[in-house]
Structures are given as C-alpha cells and as structure tokens.
C-alpha cells in the first residue's frame, strides 16, 4: 500500500512537471529547431554526402555550444524584459544600436530569401511552381500570427517543429549500419586528414549552429511570452531540450545522406532529395518535406525577429498578443519582409547563389558584436542582479564565443576568397 501511494505520488509529480514544462516550453525549443533552417539542412546534407558519418561527433559537440549561447538570452530577456535590440540601444548607445538593428534587418532579409529558396526548391520536387509556394507560405504565415495571442502562434509553430523530426524515420528507412555509425561517427576523426575542404565544412557547420537572428529571436520571444525570473530554470531546460533536438535532426540528416550519397558532392538539400527520389522515393519525399518545413520555420522566426527588433526600438506595439489593428506597424513590417523576400525568388535570373553566399559574409559582421554585447550585459550586476554570469558561465561562454567569432570570421572570409584555405 505504501509502495502504491508513493508510486501514485511520484506519478502525479511527474505529470505536474510535464504540464508545467509544456506551459513554459516554446522559445528555446523553437529557436533551436528553427536553427536547422533551409541553409542548415543543406549544410548537413552536403556534410553527410561528402564525409559519410565521420563528422557526427563534431555536430554533437555543437549542441552544448548552441545551448550556452542561447541560455544567456533567456536570462537577459527574463530579467530585463527587453529584447536584444532594445538592450543594445539602451546599454551601448545609438551607434551600436543602429549598427545592430540595420545589420540584423539586412542579414535577416537575406536569410529569408534563402529560406524561400529552400521552400520553393523543396516543393518544386512535387511539381508545385515557386509562385504558388510563395503565395501559400506568405498566406499561412500571416494567418499564424494574426490570432492575437502569442500562445497560439507558439503552439502552431511547435507543430511545424515536430515535422522537422521527419529525418528520424527517413534515417531508419535507409537501414544504416549502426556499428558503422557508432564507430565512424562517435569517435572523433578527420576523414582524409585536416585539409582546406574539411576545414570549410567544419566552419560551415559552426556557422549554421549559431546565427545572429537566434540571439535576437529568443530574447524577444522570452519577453513576449512574459517569462519572469522564476521561469529562468524552465527556459534553460527548454533550451537544453531544443539543443538535443537540433543535434538529433542534424545527425539523422547526416545518416541519411551519409548512407545513400556517400562520396558525392551535393550542392543543396533539394539536389540530394531529387537524387533520392529516383532510388528511394520515400526518403526523397521526406527530405523534400523536411527541407520545406525547415525553410518555413526559419522564415517564420526570422521575419518575426526583425519585426520585434524594430518594434522595440521605434516604440511600436510589438507583441503577438496584440491584434493586427493594435500593432499595425509590427505586422506590416513582418508582412513586408516576407513578401519582398519571397518575390526575389520569383525574379527570373535573380542572383540567388550570390545571395546565399552573401548571407555568410553579412552575418559575420553582426554575430561577433551581438555575442560580445551579450557577454558584457550578462556580466553587468546593475542589469542582471543575481542572475549575472558566474565564473563557470564566463569561462564556458567566453571560450565558446571566442571560438565562434574566429571560426565564423574565417568562414565569412573564405566565402569572400574561396581559394584562401586551399
């Protein structure tokens, strides 16, 4: 009887814990899964095709890296109740504020274009013309945000996050050799030695793990969700769960392309899906659906990031809890970003490859600044109070941020000068 009552008590406690988590889950999970956007899926697909399972260990290492950076935004948002753009203006003045805001809007818009490239490429595999894809996507994205409730937006977006897990059944369908995955993938190694090409792929994978919009997005989402200091632990847990999922998705994409396309040079996830449609139609279909979903999630979050940032700085009503007529500029900005970015993809002969490359270069100009501001703000006792960085936080965060800055800068430079690293 004692055993039964204890069992029931523990069962109720676990159910209660899950219920609380589901209430507070959202920003961390969404930002991490949306991190695997169209560009990310392409990077993982190309990495798997080029190096097989050999770089899985490296992607697993990137999970904690993403977590440590993003959890800082949870604390900063919950304590200051300001988004990152507003926090930069307030703390560092208008020069750094304008620099961050304008750079963010440029890099976000360019990234939005790449998300539309991914979405149109994904659906074109099923014969859907790009113009229809853009129209449908923009309509759905407007419908999602106009509910006037952050909660509704968040839960709908989490359904799209679930679709992102489609790569897991896809990987099971290709029947990978589990001993090979464990032996080649989990033991750190540099396939073919450490050369320029491998270095480029490592940089690309790091570059796709942390993007400037993620920092701004999660902090604004934490504020819009009205999370408080007491919710920080849950926010961090949410971010950790998200980091696990982002790594899982990346690893399973590598398993798919590493099994079916090993040794091939794949230029995009759409190309990988097209090749697979011939030999493994189900897997190709899943890859195409996953690519569309990744682009969709990325676009949804990135367009909102810019709207939140401009709303914070210009003082517009900038919450998903407002109806359209209450926050007209916020929603107009969101709509404008989506429509213009979607339209670029439809222009015949538009320099889409150039735009994709340019994203990396522009991101490099913003990411170091955003990360440095984050560290400075998290170390300021006046701003953070008892939630400021501990010594351990600083050792971990400064090490990670330094590595990200160096590697992402090298990635941006190698995009500008492709022959630099051989």
């Amino acid at each position, binding site marked *: 009887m004692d055993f039964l009552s204890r069992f029931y008590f523990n069962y109720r406690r676990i159910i209660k814990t899950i219920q609380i988590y589901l209430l507070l889950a959202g920003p961390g999970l969404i930002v991490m899964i949306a991190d695997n956007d169209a560009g990310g899926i392409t990077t993982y697909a190309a990495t798997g095709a080029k190096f097989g399972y050999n770089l899985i260990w490296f992607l697993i290492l990137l999970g904690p890296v993403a977590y440590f950076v993003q959890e800082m935004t949870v604390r900063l948002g919950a304590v200051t109740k300001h988004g990152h753009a507003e926090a930069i*203006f*307030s*703390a*560092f*003045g*208008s020069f*750094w*504020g304008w620099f961050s805001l304008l750079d963010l809007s440029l890099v976000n818009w360019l990234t939005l274009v790449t998300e539309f490239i991914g979405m149109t490429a994904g659906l074109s595999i099923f014969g859907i013309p790009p113009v229809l894809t853009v129209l449908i996507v923009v309509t759905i994205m407007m419908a999602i945000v106009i509910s006037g409730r952050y909660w509704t937006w968040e839960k709908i977006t989490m359904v799209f996050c679930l679709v992102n897990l489609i790569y897991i059944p896809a990987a099971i369908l290709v029947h990978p050799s589990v001993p090979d995955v464990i032996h080649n993938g989990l033991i750190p190694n540099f396939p073919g030695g450490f050369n320029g090409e491998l270095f480029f792929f490592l940089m690309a994978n790091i570059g796709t793990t942390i993007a400037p919009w993620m920092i701004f997005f999660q902090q604004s989402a934490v504020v819009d969700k009205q999370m408080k200091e007491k919710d920080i632990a849950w926010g961090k847990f949410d971010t950790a769960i998200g980091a696990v999922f982002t790594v899982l998705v990346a690893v399973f994409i590598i398993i798919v392309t590493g099994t079916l396309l090993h040794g091939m040079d794949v230029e995009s996830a759409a190309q990988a899906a097209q090749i697979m449609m011939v030999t493994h139609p189900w897997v190709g279909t899943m890859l195409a659906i996953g690519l569309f979903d990744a682009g969709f999630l990325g676009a949804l979050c990135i367009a909102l990031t810019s709207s939140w940032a401009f709303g914070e*700085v*210009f003082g517009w009503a900038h919450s998903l809890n407002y109806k359209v007529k209450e926050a007209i500029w916020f929603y107009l900005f969101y709509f404008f970003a989506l429509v213009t970015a979607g339209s670029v993809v439809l222009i015949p002969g538009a320099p889409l490859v150039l735009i994709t490359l340019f994203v990396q*270069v522009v991101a*490099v*100009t913003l990411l*170091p*600044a955003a990360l*440095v501001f984050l560290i*400075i*703000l998290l170390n*300021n006792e*006046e*701003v953070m109070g008892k939630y400021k960085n501990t010594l351990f936080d600083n050792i971990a965060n400064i090490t990670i941020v330094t590595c990200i800055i160096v590697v992402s*800068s090298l990635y*941006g*430079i190698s995009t*500008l*000068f492709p*022959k*630099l690293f051989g």
Partner: protein
Amino acid sequence: MVFSIQNGIIETVKTVFANGVAAVVAINRKYAHPKITMSPAVKASLLLLRLYLLFLVVLLAYKFYTIVTGGSM
C-alpha cells in the same frame, strides 16, 4: 474633389519621411548616452569590435577592388 499628384502622393511621402526622420532623431536623443558602466574591459571590448569591423570593411573593399579590376584570389 480633384486628385492631384502633389497632394495625393508627394505630400504623403513627405509626411511619412518627416515622421521617420523625427522618430530616428527621438531615438538618437533617447539613447544618446550608453547606460552601461564603461569599465576598462567594456571599453577594450568595444574598441576591439570597432577594429574588427574596420578589418571586415577593408576586406570587402579589397574584394570589390579585385572584382572591378578583374583580378581573382
């Protein structure tokens, strides 16, 4: 009432532009002074950031130069 380009479009654009400029001026005034304490570490970080951005600008200018002059790297 006759529609005129002068009143219908140009004036609207002027008003929107003037409002935009006024908003930017107000933001600049509001955030004129950084609120964070400028400790030596913060000053050094911001200086390094400026130098880093300058370095990137020089790189971009060089890339532009190589494209214009037809060189490659």
